[in-house]
C-alpha cells in the first residue's frame, strides 16, 4: 500500500524526488497537450479528407506552439459588464483540476532514483479514485464562472448548459468508475492497476458496459464533441469562452485538451490495465511507460474519431441520454456485477444469478420504458 518512497520517512531527497516527479508530470502534460492538439487536428483533417496543419515544423508539429505563442501576445480583453475578478480567476479554476487529476494516474512501474524506490506516479492516495472524481466534479467551475463572469448572454447560456451537463453525467461516470472499484476492492489507482493483469483488463472483467459508459460520460464531462454544447459555435458563438482572448483563452484551450488527456489516462488506468503489458527483456523500467502511452494514444485516437464521426447532440437528447439511458444502465450493471460477486462468495451457481439479473433487468427496462412513454404522452398532451 502506498508509495515505497515514503516508507523511510520524509527527508530532503524524498522531497526533491517528489518535486522532480512533479516537474516531469507537468512537462509531460504540457507536451502531451501540444501533441494532442496537433494530433487531433491532424487526424480529424485526415478523416475529413483535409490536410491539416502542415506549416510550423515538420508535419505542422509545432503549429500548436506557434498558436500558443501567438495567443500569448494578443491583447487580453475585459468585457465591459464582466466581473473582473471572477473573469480572471475562471481560467485558472479550469486548468488546476485538469492538471491535478493526472497526479494520481500511474504511468509506469516502480523505479529507483538515487537509491530511493518510487512509483511512477505523482501521488497514490488511498482514495485516489475519489480524488479523480473530485477533480472532475470541480472542473465545471472554470467553465461556469467564465461564462457567467463574461457578463454576456451566450457565455452565460453556455455555462448554464455546462453545469447541468457535467452534473448530470457525473452520476453515470461515477457509477461506471464504481464498477472498477468494485472489481479491485480498493480506491487506490495503483491497486486498481495491480488488480488487472497483462491482458486481464477491467474492460473484459466487468463486461464492456462500464467502459462504454465511462467513455461516453467522460466525453461529456470534458465537453468534447459530440457533447460540446457548452461551446456550440453555431448557437452560442463559442459558448463560455466567447469573450476570452489571449492567455486566458489559451488556458481554457489548454485545460480542455489536458482534460482529454487526463480522462483518457484515467480510462486506461481503470479499464485498460494501465501500464501493464507484456514484459520485454530490455529496459524493464521503460516498457510500462510505453504500454501506458500506447494505450493512451489509442484512447486519444478514439476521442478524435468520435469528434469526426458524431454530430452534436441537441440539448434534450443530451439529457435523455444521460438520465434515461446511461444512469439506469450503469446502475443496473453495477448491481448485476455486485450480484454476481455476492453469488460467487456465497457459492451460488453463476447462471442462476445471471439469469435472475437478466430477468430483473428486463422487467426494469420494460417498466422504465412504459413510464417514460407515459411521461412523453403527458408532456405532449400538455
Amino acid at each position: 500500500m502506498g508509495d515505497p518512497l515514503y516508507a523511510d520517512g520524509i527527508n530532503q531527497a524524498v522531497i526533491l524526488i517528489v518535486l522532480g516527479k512533479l516537474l516531469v508530470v507537468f512537462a509531460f502534460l504540457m507536451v502531451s497537450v501540444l501533441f494532442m492538439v496537433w494530433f487531433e487536428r491532424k487526424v480529424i483533417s485526415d478523416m475529413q479528407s483535409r490536410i491539416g496543419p502542415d506549416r510550423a515544423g515538420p508535419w505542422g508539429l509545432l503549429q500548436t506552439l506557434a498558436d500558443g505563442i501567438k495567443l500569448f501576445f494578443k491583447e487580453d480583453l475585459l468585457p465591459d459588464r464582466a466581473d473582473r475578478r471572477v473573469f480572471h480567476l475562471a481560467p485558472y479554476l479550469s486548468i488546476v483540476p485538469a492538471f491535478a487529476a493526472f497526479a494520481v494516474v500511474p504511468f509506469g512501474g516502480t523505479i529507483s532514483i538515487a537509491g530511493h524506490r518510487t512509483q511512477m506516479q505523482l501521488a497514490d492516495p488511498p482514495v485516489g479514485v475519489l480524488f479523480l472524481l473530485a477533480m472532475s466534479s470541480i472542473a465545471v467551475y472554470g467553465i461556469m464562472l467564465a461564462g457567467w463572469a463574461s457578463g454576456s448572454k451566450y457565455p452565460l447560456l453556455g455555462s448554464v448548459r455546462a453545469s447541468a451537463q457535467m452534473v448530470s453525467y457525473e452520476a453515470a461516470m461515477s457509477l461506471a468508475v464504481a464498477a472498477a472499484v468494485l472489481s479491485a476492492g480498493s480506491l487506490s489507482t495503483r491497486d486498481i492497476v495491480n488488480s488487472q493483469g497483462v491482458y486481464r483488463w477491467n474492460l473484459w472483467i466487468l463486461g464492456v458496459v462500464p467502459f462504454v459508459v465511462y467513455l461516453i460520460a467522460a466525453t461529456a464531462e470534458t465537453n468534447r464533441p459530440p457533447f460540446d454544447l457548452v461551446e456550440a459555435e453555431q448557437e452560442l458563438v463559442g459558448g463560455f469562452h466567447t469573450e476570452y482572448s489571449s492567455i486566458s483563452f489559451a488556458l481554457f484551450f489548454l485545460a480542455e485538451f489536458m482534460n482529454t488527456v487526463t480522462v483518457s489516462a484515467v480510462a486506461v488506468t481503470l479499464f485498460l490495465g494501465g501500464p501493464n503489458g507484456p514484459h520485454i527483456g530490455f529496459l524493464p523500467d521503460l516498457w510500462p511507460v510505453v504500454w501506458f502511452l500506447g494505450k493512451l494514444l489509442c484512447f486519444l485516437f478514439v476521442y478524435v474519431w468520435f469528434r469526426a464521426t458524431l454530430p452534436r447532440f441537441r440539448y434534450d437528447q443530451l439529457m435523455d441520454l444521460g438520465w434515461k439511458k446511461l444512469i439506469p444502465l450503469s446502475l443496473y450493471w453495477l448491481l448485476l456485477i455486485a450480484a454476481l460477486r455476492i453469488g460467487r462468495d456465497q457459492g451460488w451457481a453463476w447462471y442462476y444469478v445471471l439469469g435472475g439479473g437478466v430477468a430483473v433487468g428486463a422487467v426494469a427496462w420494460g417498466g422504465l420504458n412504459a413510464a417514460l412513454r407515459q411521461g412523453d404522452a403527458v408532456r405532449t398532451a400538455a
Partner: protein
Amino acid sequence: MGYLDGFRITLKQMWGDRVTNVYPDEKRPKPDRFHGRHVLNRYEDGMEKCIGCELCAGVCPARCIYVRGADNPPDEPVSPGERFGFVYEINYLRCIHCDLCVEACPTEAITESKLFEFSFTDRQDAIYTKAELVVDDDGNPQKLPWEDWRPGDEQHTSAWVRATAPSGSAAYEGRVGWSGELGFGVRAPEKGQTAETDRAASAAPRKAKS
C-alpha cells in the same frame, strides 16, 4: 448498426484522397463568377468611370460603401461626366460581396475582382480607400501588401461577367453591352450562354403551366 457505420466511414476516409490543397503553395483556379474584392475601373482613355452618384452606397445592404462625389475640375476632369468620385471607401469588415453595388452602378465603374486575400493585421487596413481600389495605369488592380498574387491573377480582376446582359436572354447572345476598359479594351462576350440553356430555362415554366 447505423451508429457504427459512421465510425467505419470516418475511419475509411483517413486513407482516402485529400480534397484540399496546400493553399499558399498551390492555388486552386477560381470559379468564373467568383466575387472577390472590388476595383474601380477606368475608361480606355484613363478617365475614371465613377461619377460619384452614390447609387452603390445606397444599394449596399451592409452599408459598407462610403462615396462622396465632387465636381470635376474643368481644366483637369477625372471622369467624363460632371462629377467624379472624390472619396470612395469600402469597409471589408462589413462587405458581404453580394455584388449589388456592381448591378447598381450605371457606369460600370465598380466591379468585383477575384482577389480574395484580406489578411490585414490592422482594422484600419480593412477600409479600402479609393487609392487602393482604383485600377492602376495599366488597368490592373493595385497589389496590396497582404495579397498573394500568382502570375496571371491580375488578369482576372475586372468583372467581365458584365459583358453580357444579366438576364441571360438569348437575344443578347454574343452582344457586348460593355464600354471599353483601360488595359483590356472591350471584352469578348461571356461564354456558356447558349441557346439550349436559354430555351430550357424559358420552356420550363411553360411546361409547368400545361
